């Protein structure tokens, strides 16, 4: 295959890989936004906790699969606690107040992690080795395949949950019309709790999947959270399909931009996307046609 094409493929692979991670983070934003209209700025901390807690458990001699399960479970507990202890008691406050609470919670979680787990950078081992695979002349790391596979699996599960289960539909109903949802007997506090638990799960999984590639640190959540947010608004906040497309697009913009323009601006792309969306299409690619399926 001609060299420029191979190079392009290489950028493509790396773009989809990080794009899948952004998509998971963006889905987390979408879930909570739909249930409560709150933008959860502690979403990045779920990502950070996934990676950091997995590392901490591994360093205690626990096997990788068990460490992953433990980290996901603990992050979900943190997500549920955040809803129960900080959001639920303030549920009559306006949305801006709730958003500020999530920013505070994010700062608290970063501080707590740096105190208990330290401020060092840690790499997780790749799930199935570091032997690059060759695909159409370009190379792809096995960890990238894990990322794509797990993300695809999660998307399929979420799709099934929201389209084929009554509980999933109850969540959609709540996000569309809270009053009517309460009148048919949906416990909207439970829906909110569930959305925080699910978002924490998505965040933790993203953080664990990416940690073998980019390493983890008590502050990784800041940038990953921001990029997930950029992906979410690019796709249209609260739109599930939009979150996935937005994530993949942002990943591609980043990697193609870094490859063909300059890698100095890689992290700046997310900001450019946020500003561009806010200026030129505030409702994102998939707009707000009412509340869409997640």
């Amino acid at each position, binding site marked *: 295959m001609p060299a420029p094409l191979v190079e392009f493929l290489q950028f493509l692979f790396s773009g989809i890989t990080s794009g899948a991670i952004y998509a998971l983070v963006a889905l987390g934003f979408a879930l909570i936004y739909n249930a409560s209209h709150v933008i959860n700025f502690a979403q990045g901390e779920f990502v950070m906790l996934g990676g950091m807690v997995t590392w901490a458990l591994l360093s205690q001699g626990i096997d990788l699969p068990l460490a992953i399960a433990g980290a996901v479970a603990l992050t979900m507990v943190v997500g549920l606690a955040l809803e129960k202890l900080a959001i639920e008691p303030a549920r009559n406050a306006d949305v801006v107040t709730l958003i500020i609470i999530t920013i505070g919670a994010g700062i608290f979680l970063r501080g707590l992690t740096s105190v208990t787990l330290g401020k060092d950078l840690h790499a997780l081992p790749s799930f199935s080795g570091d032997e690059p695979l060759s695909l159409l002349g370009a190379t792809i790391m096995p960890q990238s395949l894990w990322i794509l596979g797990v993300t695809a699996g999660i998307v399929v599960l979420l799709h099934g949950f929201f389209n084929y289960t009554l509980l999933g539909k109850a969540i959609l109903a709540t996000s569309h019309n809270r009053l*009517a949802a309460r009148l*048919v007997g949906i416990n909207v506090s439970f829906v909110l709790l569930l959305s925080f638990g699910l978002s924490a799960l998505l965040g933790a999984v993203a953080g664990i999947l990416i940690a073998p590639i980019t390493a983890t640190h008590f502050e990784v959540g800041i940038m990953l959270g921001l990029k997930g947010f950029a992906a979410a608004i690019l796709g249209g906040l609260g739109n599930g399909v939009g979150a996935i497309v937005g994530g993949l697009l942002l990943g591609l913009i980043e990697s193609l931009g870094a490859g063909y323009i300059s890698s100095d601006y890689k992290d700046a792309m997310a900001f450019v996307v946020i500003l561009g969306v806010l200026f030129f299409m505030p409702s994102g690619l998939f707009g707000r046609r009412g509340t869409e399926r997640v």
Partner: protein
Amino acid sequence: MLEIQGLTSHYGRIQALEGVDLTIAEGELVALVGANGAGKTTLLRCISGVQPVTGGRILFEGRDITRAAPQSRVALGICQVPEGRQVFGPLSVEDNLKLGAFRRRGKRVADDLERMYTRFPVLKEKRKQPAGTLSGGQQQMLAICRALMAHPRLLLLDEPSMGLAPLLVGEIFNTVELLKEQGTTLFLVEQNAYAALGIADRGYVLETGGVVLSDTGAALLENARVKEAYLGL
């Protein structure tokens, strides 16, 4: 069946209900009439538990439910067809109906779904379509059916005929009478006071947050004050 004592409710500092007393017996069809802003919707929302009560009590079959969560009231059989229909627009007609039965599980839900479809064939025809694409009248039928899916023992209807063509209004009132014959207890809020009091066993007149009159439906229709204020006679 339902007993309301000295109920008050506020929106911030604005008082919307100023001590409402009202009772509904099992099997009765009770109408509530009153001008715009009298507090009718607020009262129904308090009964369903989606509007904070600031004073007084609500008893359902002797049990104090003043502070009960909305979902436990639905489980007790208190269901509401809200003002303005409030269907779940992006969800399909069928999903709207299934969500009406959210508090009930089991295969009897499928039988109920069929009964709704038999009664309103247009809903069956459009069952896969987003509820938001239905016409106003069809959405009102859907909102009523959604509430019926919960097997209400007390059904609260908030202006079900609002904004509908006369033919559809007739159909709504026929449905209400049919439900009464089948034994459902009904509390009907209506702007169309003439039609509502005409089919009601008893009626209440609400003015600025308080009950000012209550009598049988027929007597209220003859009442001079009601005639002047609500029947335009």
